[in-house]
């Protein structure tokens, strides 16, 4: 039962944090709270028995993403324009509400939280749990699935992160080609520069 309590409290924290993020107009504060949000969700993952995910979420969401956002902020401006609601805001609210309600409706037929008989736990997953330690010889089933059963996904994942690195280098880096270090990189092409 304690687990449920922790889940509830963490989820409440998460909701409070998310609402605060929307309301804050100081972007540094918003980003910091996002860091908290990430850390909280990582804790939640841990409570929900997903240590690998918690590990990654903490390192990536609370760590890298937050640091990057802060860096970006230092390169951009620090606070959001405080304008009255812009055009089309009610429509957006409706879109969000409809999406949310649709999703909530969709959960009505979901197996309950933690239900051990859910199809998700009874079709493919059991074999991972039963076979992977024997077939792969690794205790951590997540690693087994990640690197072997679904190794191709992970190759794709590495490609994604590679793509991101490539993209950021192309967007912001001064040089990319080893052969043309001296040539101007992106900066010259950034268009009219102002600010800094």
């Amino acid at each position, binding site marked *: 039962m304690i687990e449920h309590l922790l889940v509830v409290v963490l989820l409440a924290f998460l909701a409070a944090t998310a609402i605060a993020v929307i309301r804050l107009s100081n972007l540094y504060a918003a980003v910091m709270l996002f860091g908290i949000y990430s850390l909280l969700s990582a804790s939640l993952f841990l409570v929900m028995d997903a240590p690998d995910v918690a590990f990654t979420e903490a390192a990536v969401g609370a*760590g890298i993403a937050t640091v990057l956002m802060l860096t970006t902020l230092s390169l951009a401006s620090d606070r959001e324009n405080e304008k009255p609601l812009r055009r089309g805001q009610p429509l957006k609210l409706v879109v969000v509400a409809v999406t949310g309600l649709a999703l909530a409706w969709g959960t009505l037929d979901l197996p309950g939280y933690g239900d051990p008989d859910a199809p998700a736990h009874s079709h493919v997953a059991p074999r991972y749990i039963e076979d992977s330690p024997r077939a792969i010889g690794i205790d*951590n089933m997540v690693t087994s699935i990640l690197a072997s059963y679904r190794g191709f996904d992970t190759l794709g994942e590495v490609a994604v992160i590679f793509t991101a690195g490539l993209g950021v280098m192309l967007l912001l*880096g001064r040089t990319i080609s080893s052969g043309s270090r001296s040539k101007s990189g992106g900066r010259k092409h950034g268009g009219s520069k102002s600010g800094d």
Partner: protein
Amino acid sequence: MGESTVGASPVTNQPVLRVTAKVLIPLIMLFALYVQFHGDFSPGGGFQAGVIFGSAVILYGLVFGEQRAARALPPGLLRWLACGGLLLYGGVGLACIASGGAFLEYGILTENPVDGQHLGILLVEVGVGLTVTSVMVTIFSVFAGRRQA
């Protein structure tokens, strides 16, 4: 807004932070290696290790300035590492094909399929780690490098 130059930042080169960082960074790197190679038995793996290793470098950059970090890990090297990691991963897969198996069928790599799985996972995790570390550091240094320019 001249705040963003290196020397003026109240964080860079602050003695207390420098000392702490000097103690912590090797520890973090060691920890990253642990996560990398202990991922089979506890949470963690190449990706997490990569991020932690990257974090160590980022911390170094934060405290000692990005130039020093860039000197320690020059962009060219990082590019090679990033590409190398991805190629290592794919190469393991291709090696499996070359040995007569399917793509990424590690079991084929050694006599004993379980050993093969072990070896394959180890190698691809190293690949993941390499790419993730170098991409993380690259991204950070590129962002931070933008600040000083």
